[in-house]
């Protein structure tokens, strides 16, 4: 079999990016894969290409199956126009540097121009000069790829970095929270909630919002990072919006954060009100046990097992109700916390503990008693809708209003 054609294709591809490759070596590798290991020729070519990519720190451009970098040549681009798969030349300002996640990475951070911002990674192997925060650079022949749906600019050994003489300040335009998309974004938002952290390395997590919506935020523990104050308004420049399960969350660890004067009065997603019947109380409602490890607080299984911290005999009790609230048009997944459950059910945590520890049915008895007190009842729930679930701040039973009754009688009788 002849391997020269495939070898030619491969060498042409790397010649474009300035890499010289040894044809004989490539041909030998292809031959070995096909003849010795019975690999299909196309698969062998792919495998050799991947190996070279790794060697040169190039991320395969374009979608799998489309050979070569999209468009071929490098083009000069604004950051907002850089798409995964592009080979680009970009002028931008290093607006933030973050701690490299791995020794293979020399520098990582965020590069911005007037059009937008992008995360960048400089591979250690590229031997690129160190860039300084706040300075402008021209990057020739960098490659844009995608990591977890977020465009990422890679500086490899074929990239040239030149410092350029620009000092003009960049003022990022904040975008509305509802317009955030995976990538780098800037927002002006109010901290509306602080949540219990779920990880040792997490400094703070919670919810920020503006007039258009709310989004979860995270700050990881890093030197010099401070918590945000609940209720305060901040301008957050160059935060990273990650997407997981079609939900965005804003990692603001590396962002420039400035507290603002003034307030955002109407944060939406703030107070959703739903009236309807409690049509289902889900298992896991009633009294539950929580993991006592600081920052964990996960619900334990019946065997006192935490998915992270394993068996926890010194658990803490808590109350909650999970279920469905139905208004006849739509069913809302609701979660009531202890301070909402107690007044609604008329059962305090202490009373529930007493039942759980002394009744033969134990925790099930608490579930059954609570269910009998609230299932099938009409309630008004107010809270915050997050990830298709209403986190309820207040829940009250509805009461009969004769005014409503009279209005409906008129409405029903009026037409006949």
């Amino acid at each position, binding site marked *: 079999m002849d391997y020269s054609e495939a070898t030619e294709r491969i060498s042409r591809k790397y010649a474009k990016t300035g890499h010289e490759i040894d044809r004989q070596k490539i041909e030998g590798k292809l031959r070995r894969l096909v003849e010795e290991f019975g690999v299909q020729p196309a698969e062998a070519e792919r495998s050799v290409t991947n190996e070279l990519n790794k060697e040169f720190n190039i991320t395969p451009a374009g979608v799998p199956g489309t050979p070569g970098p999209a468009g071929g040549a490098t083009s000069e681009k604004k950051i907002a126009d850089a798409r995964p798969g592009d080979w680009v030349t970009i002028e931008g300002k290093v607006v933030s540097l973050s701690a490299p996640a791995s020794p293979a990475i020399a520098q990582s951070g965020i590069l911005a121009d007037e059009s937008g911002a992008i995360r960048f990674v400089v591979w250690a192997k590229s031997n690129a000069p160190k860039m300084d925060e706040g300075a402008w650079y021209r990057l020739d022949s960098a490659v844009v790829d995608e990591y977890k749906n977020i465009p990422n600019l890679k500086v490899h050994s074929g990239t040239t970095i030149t410092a350029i003489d620009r000092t003009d300040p960049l003022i990022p335009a904040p975008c509305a929270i509802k317009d955030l998309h995976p990538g780098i974004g800037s927002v002006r938002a109010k901290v509306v909630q602080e949540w219990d952290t779920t990880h040792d390395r997490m400094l703070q997590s919670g919810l920020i919002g503006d007039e258009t919506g709310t989004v979860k935020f995270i700050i990881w523990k890093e030197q010099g990072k401070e918590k945000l104050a609940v209720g305060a308004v901040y301008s957050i420049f160059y935060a990273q919006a990650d997407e997981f399960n079609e939900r965005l969350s804003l990692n603001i660890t590396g962002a420039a954060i400035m507290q603002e004067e003034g307030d955002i009065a109407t944060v939406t997603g703030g107070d959703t009100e739903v009236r309807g*019947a409690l*049509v*289902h109380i889900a298992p896991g409602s009633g009294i539950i046990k929580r993991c006592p490890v600081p920052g964990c607080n996960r619900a334990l299984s019946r065997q006192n097992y935490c998915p992270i911290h394993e068996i926890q005999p010194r658990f803490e009790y808590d109350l909650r109700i999970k279920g*469905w609230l*139905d*208004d*006849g*048009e*739509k*069913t809302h*997944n609701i979660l009531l916390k202890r301070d909402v459950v107690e007044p609604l059910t008329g059962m305090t945590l202490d009373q529930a503990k007493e039942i759980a520890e002394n009744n033969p049915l134990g925790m099930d008895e608490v579930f059954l008693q609570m*269910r*009998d007190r609230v*299932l*099938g*009842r*009409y309630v008004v729930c107010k809270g915050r809708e997050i990830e*298709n679930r209403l986190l309820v701040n207040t829940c009250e039973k*509805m*009461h*009969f209003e*004769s005014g*409503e*009754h009279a209005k*409906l*009688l008129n*409405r*029903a*009788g009026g*037409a*006949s």
Partner: protein
Amino acid sequence: MSSTAPEMGGRRDASFEREPARRVFASELRECRYQFKDGEDEKSPTFVLLPTGERSNRIFISGTLTEKSRQGEQNVFYRGRVIDPTGTFFVMAGSYQPEAMQQLAKIETPAFVSVTGKPNLYQKPDGSYLVSVRVESITVVEKETRDLWVLDTAARTLDRLDALATGTSPDITKAKEQYPMLDPAVYRKNVFDALAQIKM
């Protein structure tokens, strides 16, 4: 519980959307004659078409449980009658709904109850139809809950009647086709009578 049927359009694009429980008086549910499946899948939801022009896979009712009886030898199930101001709902819970069955078995009649369940249409050997509600949950409630349900159901039924007069949704068109004798005035009067019976 329900599946992802592509022809449902936007409604099912999200991971999972629970079918809402419709509010309907017994007098209207009794008139149902048309049941259909949405989608080809084995697990596609089944709907009864309410005469006022809305599909219903689940209903929420509140009324008085007047009777219940245990039936069956090997496959035990419970039947019950729940009365609202306009008529009777036939409810049942079998071994496939163990929790609902236990709840129903425990209740002493008569009692005000709230019921969430799935309506099903049966044709009896004599050709007449019966709508029975398979109970998902049943709880003893206060009279006030029943009264609130009458208000809620009255409002929802009037909403449907308003939509029926002007709307053009496929379900409304279908209802006009399937229920040629449909007289909105009768349903409106039922609503008025139901309201007139409470808190008087």
